Every structure is written in structure tokens, then in C-alpha cells.
């Protein structure tokens, strides 16, 4: 049987080797990790490492010809104008309200008084849409500010499309009207009640009608000192914009790269 032990051992080791090779080969997961480009994952294909490609210089993409100067800049002959480039509908206003609540309220607050949460946390005071200065501004001023930023406020070009910006502008105007409403504006026969009366009626606490309190569970560790980081958007108009998703934007900063697996 001596020979045979040798042969069987050889066969066994061959078999094990085969199994090992098979198992090693089995580690490929090329469906799991595909050599495709994914947004924000980055790529080795391009020198800048970006998988989402910036627009090629000196080209105009379909739908980005931006012919309508007023629509895209908010300036008519270089001047802000109290006019919309297109008709306003209820849907547009609803859209404006929605976008305003998302992007503007952190600073300007829901009612637009400039007392948003971030301002409460120490950001430079934001504009109150209901002060005399803002009430005087023409409609396209708001569009212009959203597009280009204003003092400490960064621009929101990346977050808001031109239409959305116009919608928000329209909504700001509606907000101004509502906050500045007089009894005369109330249609005849409509009952208008004081907020505190409503609160009382519905059994809400008295604070319901007062100014918004700070949420109890928000931790504020230090007081902001107002120091501004170098290159912050308000200070430098040419600051790089990290933009994603915006239709007419040109991201010049590498997109965030998130590796698939650690």
C-alpha cells in the first residue's frame, strides 16, 4: 500500500490546490463593484478625478442658451424691475413657498422677518422682508440676490433654478403682502381672529402666538464670535462654488467622493 499512499496524498494535495484556486477566484465581485461612473464616487478615468463631468468650456448645452436676459439675470437693461418674466399661478406660488421654506427659512424665518434659526445662532442678521427698504425693492431684486448673493448671504444658484428663484421671489412678495395685510384686505364677510384668540380657543399654550422659542433639545455650545472664515462666500464674490445638480451651473470644485466600502 506504500505506493498508493503517495499517490493519494498527491491527488489530495492537487485537489486542495484546485479548491484553493477556485476559492481565490471566487473573491471577485464585479457586479457588486462595477467599473462604471457614479455621481460623487469619483473616477480614475479623468485627471480631475470627477465622475460628473463639468460642462466643456465655450459650449452651450441644450436649454441653456439663456437668451432671455431678464429671466436669467433679473435685470432689464441692467436694472432691477418690479415685474415677473412670466405669469404667476397658484402652483408657482406654492412652489415658491415650498422652496422658500427649504432654502430661505434658516435665516429669513418662515415669515420672512430675518429672524431665522441660523441668525439666532449667530449668523449675521438676515434681511427682514417687511422693513421699509425691502418693501420698496422691485420684485426682480430678490431674484438678483438669490442669483448673486448679497453681503453675507451666499448665492443660491446651485440650489434654485431660475424658475424656482422667480417663484421664491413671487412668494416673498406674497409674504410681504400677507404680513402687511390690513383689515381692508380681508374680503368682506370673512372673520379675522387674533392669533392669541385662536390659540386660546384651540387650547394651545399662550406662547403659540408669541415669537418662536428655541427648541429645547438644541445644544448651543459656544457663542459665535462673528469671525468670518477666509474665503467665505459673502466676502469674496469670486469664491469657488461647489455645485451639484443645478441645471445651469458649472461646478469647479471636485465633487464629494465617497468610497464604496471601507
Amino acid at each position: 500500500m506504500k505506493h498508493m499512499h503517495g499517490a493519494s496524498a498527491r491527488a489530495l494535495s492537487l485537489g486542495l490546490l484546485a479548491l484553493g484556486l477556485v476559492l481565490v477566484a471566487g473573491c471577485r465581485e464585479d457586479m457588486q463593484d462595477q467599473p462604471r461612473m457614479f455621481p460623487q464616487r469619483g473616477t480614475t478615468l479623468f485627471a480631475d478625478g470627477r465622475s460628473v463631468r463639468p460642462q466643456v468650456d465655450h459650449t452651450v448645452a441644450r436649454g441653456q442658451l439663456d437668451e432671455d436676459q431678464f429671466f436669467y439675470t433679473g435685470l432689464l437693461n441692467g436694472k432691477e424691475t418690479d415685474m415677473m418674466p412670466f405669469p404667476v399661478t397658484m402652483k408657482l406660488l406654492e412652489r415658491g413657498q415650498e422652496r422658500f421654506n427649504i432654502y430661505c427659512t434658516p435665516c429669513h424665518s418662515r415669515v420672512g422677518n430675518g429672524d431665522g434659526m441660523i441668525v439666532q445662532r449667530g449668523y449675521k442678521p438676515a434681511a427682514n422682508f417687511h422693513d421699509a427698504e425691502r418693501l420698496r425693492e422691485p420684485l426682480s431684486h430678490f431674484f438678483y440676490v438669490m442669483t448673486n448673493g448679497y453681503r453675507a448671504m451666499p448665492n443660491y444658484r446651485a440650489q434654485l433654478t431660475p424658475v424656482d428663484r422667480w417663484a421664491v421671489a413671487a412668494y416673498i412678495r406674497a409674504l410681504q403682502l400677507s404680513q402687511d395685510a390690513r383689515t381692508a384686505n380681508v374680503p368682506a364677510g370673512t372673520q379675522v381672529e387674533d392669533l392669541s384668540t385662536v390659540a386660546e380657543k384651540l387650547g394651545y399654550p399662550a406662547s403659540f402666538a408669541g415669537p418662536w422659542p428655541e427648541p429645547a433639545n438644541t445644544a448651543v455650545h459656544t457663542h459665535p464670535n462673528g469671525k468670518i472664515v477666509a474665503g467665505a462666500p459673502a466676502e469674496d464674490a469670486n469664491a469657488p462654488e461647489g455645485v451639484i445638480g443645478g441645471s445651469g451651473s458649472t461646478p469647479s470644485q471636485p465633487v464629494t467622493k465617497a468610497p464604496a466600502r471601507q
Partner: protein
Amino acid sequence: MAQIFDRSSNALARMSLVLTGLIVIALGFSLDELQRSPWVTRQGQRAEQPVEFSHKHHVEGLGIQCQYCHTSVEKSSYAGIPPTRTCMNCHAQIWTDAQMLEPVRHSWATNQSIVWTRVHDLPDFVFFNHEIHVNKGIGCASCHGRVDEMPILYQQNTLQMEWCLNCHRNPAKNLRPTSEIYNMAWTGPTDLKPVWCAAVDGKTGTPTSQDVTCTSAPPGQQAAAEEASLNPAFAGLHAQAAAATSTDASPAQLPASLSYTKFTSQEALGLFLVKHYNIRTPRELTSCEVCHR
């Protein structure tokens, strides 16, 4: 001549047979458990991030909406991780010397992206699309959980295929009005908290989520108020296209007579939404004709 095997071998042989059976069964059970365990799914694990960003603080505490940062969630397959610039929108002025934010400032200064660790990482063969989900009644919280209560983000669900299919086989149990998508705390209608919904026949005739209006207040007055306030209030806003206004925003186009239905359970609401959002049933989805028309 002694036997080849001694007496104990009988017991040993039987024992080993029984043990083999038990081991096979145990192996089956453990593999079944293992493949669903957080060890495999990474469910509930808090990955180490370059910045200990707290969703709880920003969402629950400051009331920032999801889309403020995840701007592309409504219009692309990716929700989008915000660029450093979005951080700097605020942190240019507040918390400017916080140690925690050093990587953000570094990124801002050097133009180098912050490399976040992906928490919700689907395999590359999955073509998940945020756009269709958020626009057809799936709330953020349905998949991501109560992000507003997570100081450090983690993956609430397994994200395994069975989890996807559990919903796709019966989407009704998770659908909500499109107005409630970003509401983290939405829990579905109940007797105490009913929802009224109405469907408009869209111009195309195909039902979509845009044609469904839902409200959590009794709808009667609201609809009337909308109609009443619209025309006179904004006539002055667009002098330029006044003519167009009169046709575009004419009351004829508005949902003049929406018939609202009151829903007091998620099942009922879900079924209504499945129908009017045009959510495909499994039978339709698994048909070859879905792709091979």
C-alpha cells in the same frame, strides 16, 4: 484475533451520524441568521466620518429641511451629498473656530472634497432612483429611518433585496401624500388624525402623483379659500404677461370641484395612492412586457 473496531465504535458511529445531522441543521440556521445580521448588512452601524455631522442637530434642532443639503433628491437618482460650500453657507460665520469643523474649513481652503464614508451603500448592480421614490409617495424616513433623531447617521434598514421587495410587493403600506415626503414624523392616517385626498384627472389621463391633492385639514374651506384669493391678489405681479395670466390662471383650470375622500387608515390611503400614483403591481412588474414591449 481482536476485532478491528472496539465496542465504543458503535456508539461513536451513531453519535457522529446524529451530530452530522445536527451540525447541518445548525449550520443552516446560523447561515440564515448570519445573512440577515448587522454583521452582513451593516444595519445600525455608525461609520467613522471625517466630521461628526449630526443630522439630529441640523434637522430636529435647527429645522433645516432635507433638500437644503440633498438638493438633487427630487430630480435625480442621487440624493446628493452636499459640497463643502453648503456647509460654508452657515459655517462661514458660525462655529468658525470649532475644532470639529476643521476638516470642512480645510476642504474649503484647499478645494479638496471631504471624503465621507458612505452609509447607505447599495451594490452597483442596483439602480435605485431617489427621484421616482420621493415623487411617488415614499418618505425619506421610510427607508432612512428617523434621520432627524440620529446624532450620527446609521443605516436603519437592511437594504437587502428582500427589504426592497417587501415594499414593492405591497407598496400601499408605505405610501404617503407627496406633501408628507420630508416629514420625518409622519405615521399614516388614523381615526384621530385623518387625511383627505382627492385625485384630479390630469390632462394626460394618466394618473400621477401630481394629480393627487392631500390635506390633513378638512378640505372644504381650504379649496374655496384658494379659489377666492388667487386672481385678484397677484394680478399686479406680472404686468408684462397680463394677458397670459388671465388664461393660465383662470379658475376653469383649477381643481374646481375636487371630491375629497377621508382616510383613517394607512391601508385605505395606500390603496388609493397606489391607484392614483400609478404604482405598478408585482404582476405588471414581473411581466416580460414591462421592458420588452
